[in-house]
């Protein structure tokens, strides 16, 4: 099964490029201390705001720190936040969607009204309000983004469950006396998994975008910890004199999210039974 999936994904050339970039990024994040040529925290007042050169391929920032090293370490932050926040929102969304779809009735309408309420808030407003009230740090950011991004998954899973519930194999299992737990975890969840996997992939990309936006506003990852959004927010202050401060970290965000989205799209195609029958 996994092999077929891989073959289908590899057939799409652009998504292979995306996959390579994601792989490269993971390596970069894992081995950041080896790859980064300088200490990302090391301040050097003699080489402030230097343009890209052989020594500093991405230039230096307002405190003389090597931008390339900071971008390399920034990959760690982005991936960490992206994956953990995705995990939180996918778990909440899947659980609530399963409960709402399976039990129906009052529980269903309560959960779905809650989804409606959460969807009424402009997401960035809600996140910013919570982050402003609590002191922002990387853990709070992960949790808050995770807690505010589960609604689409809940709707998706609920819709899947509703259609699966009426299928013969579920009804048969119920007739044989299987309990709710068995039906949910053995019959419904495995069959509802594909759309969740695709949604999870796209979620990583959108979390990275939100996190970088928060850090850009100064309400995300706090300096001196290197993050792509954080470097960009300094870049904004030096926009007329140091383009490299804005260009490289932004490019890193763009390419990362683009690769994830391309991969997600290929995954969606690969998991679509209609397309391959």
């Amino acid at each position, binding site marked *: 099964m996994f092999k077929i999936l891989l073959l289908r994904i590899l057939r799409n050339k652009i998504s292979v490029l995306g996959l390579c970039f994601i792989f490269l990024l993971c390596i970069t994040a894992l081995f950041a201390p080896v790859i980064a040529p300088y200490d990302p925290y090391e301040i050097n007042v003699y080489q402030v705001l230097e343009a890209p050169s052989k020594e500093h391929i991405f230039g230096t920032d307002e405190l003389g720190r090597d931008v390339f090293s900071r971008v390399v370490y920034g990959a760690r932050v982005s991936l960490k936040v992206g994956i953990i926040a995705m995990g939180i929102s996918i778990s909440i969304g899947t659980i609530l969607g399963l409960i709402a779809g399976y039990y129906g009735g009052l529980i269903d309408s309560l959960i779905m009204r809650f989804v409606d309420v959460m969807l009424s808030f402009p997401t960035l407003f809600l996140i910013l309000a*919570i982050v402003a009230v609590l002191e922002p740090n990387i853990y709070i950011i992960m949790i808050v983004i995770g807690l505010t991004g589960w609604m689409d998954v809940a709707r998706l899973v609920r819709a899947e469950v509703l259609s699966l519930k009426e299928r013969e194999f579920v009804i048969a299992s119920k007739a044989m006396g299987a309990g709710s737990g068995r039906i949910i975890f053995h019959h419904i969840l495995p069959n509802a998994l594909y759309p969740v996997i695709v949604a999870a992939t796209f979620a990583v990309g959108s979390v990275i975008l939100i996190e970088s936006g928060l850090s850009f506003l100064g309400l995300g990852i706090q300096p001196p910890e290197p993050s792509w959004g954080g470097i960009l927010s300094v870049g904004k202050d030096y926009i007329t004199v140091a*383009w490299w401060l804005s260009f490289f970290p932004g490019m890193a965000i763009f390419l990362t999210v683009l690769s994830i989205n391309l991969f997600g799209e290929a995954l969606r195609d690969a998991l679509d039974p209609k397309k391959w029958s």
Partner: protein
Amino acid sequence: MLVYLIKRFFLMIPILMGITLICFIVINLAPGSPALFQEEISPKASPEAAEALKKLYGLDKPIHERYFNWLDMVISLELGKSFVDGRDVKEKIKERLPVTIILNLLSLCLIFVMAIPIGIYSALKPGTLFDRVLTIFVFTGFSIPTFWLALIAMIIFGVNLGWLPISGIQSIGAENLPLGQRIIDHFKHLIMPVIIMSFAGLAGMSRYTRSSMLEVLSQDYIRTARAKGLPERIVIMKHAFRNALLPVVTLLGLAIPGLIGGSVIFESIFSIPGMGQLFYSSAMSRDYPTIMGILLIGALLTLIGNLIADIAYFLVDPRIRVKKDV
């Protein structure tokens, strides 16, 4: 129609309650109470003064009582006073809201005016160069950090080429210009923010229109229309286009939270004195009453947007009208 509207209104009540509850919970997440925070600013404040302050903001009462007190205030549209300058939050929001609404409406218009023709054209010619360029554009729109795009646009068009101003909504001293020049001045200031705000929505909406149009084109009634020998232009405009547009209308409502949320970022990048900028500065200074007020207004705007989209859908789609009234 009336029955539908009434039903729709009643459905909004629990959602409104939920929204106020979440706003209230968010603000009460604070580890230190707002009174403690005031103490931080002026450490000299005596314990008695802190007590008095707590009483003033009602912080000495149990939490559920505080929620209902606050709800009472909110229902009478009283949002409290800002911690920063003591001004009425309602007033502060009122003077900022028009700019944000105008910016968002302009962006919505741009999205619709651009996205629908792009989506339909590429649906009519799938696989052509235009269609492929659209696909690239869609992926870019979904993946690019828009605040970065704004910075790049500022560097290119504002700093290097000097074509467009990079901050504010009017030049200094623009009030004294004649009306025509003032409009041009505003227009120049708004081009960059509006285009960049619309970018992500434009990508999403074009893609959506394209797939909606493709689906309609594969329907039987289109084949029938063609088989009747109708000119292709009429098949497309009269039969396909109108039906493809239906689901696009619903997206109007869905695009609103993203646009309003984005105003925090764009207004602070382009120094536009709107609600987003106010929200940003209150978040930075932890001005709780203002944060709470704007959070509430933002959610209300979304609700209103959804309501308008639903009503529009109801008006355009005869199927719903028949089903709901019977």
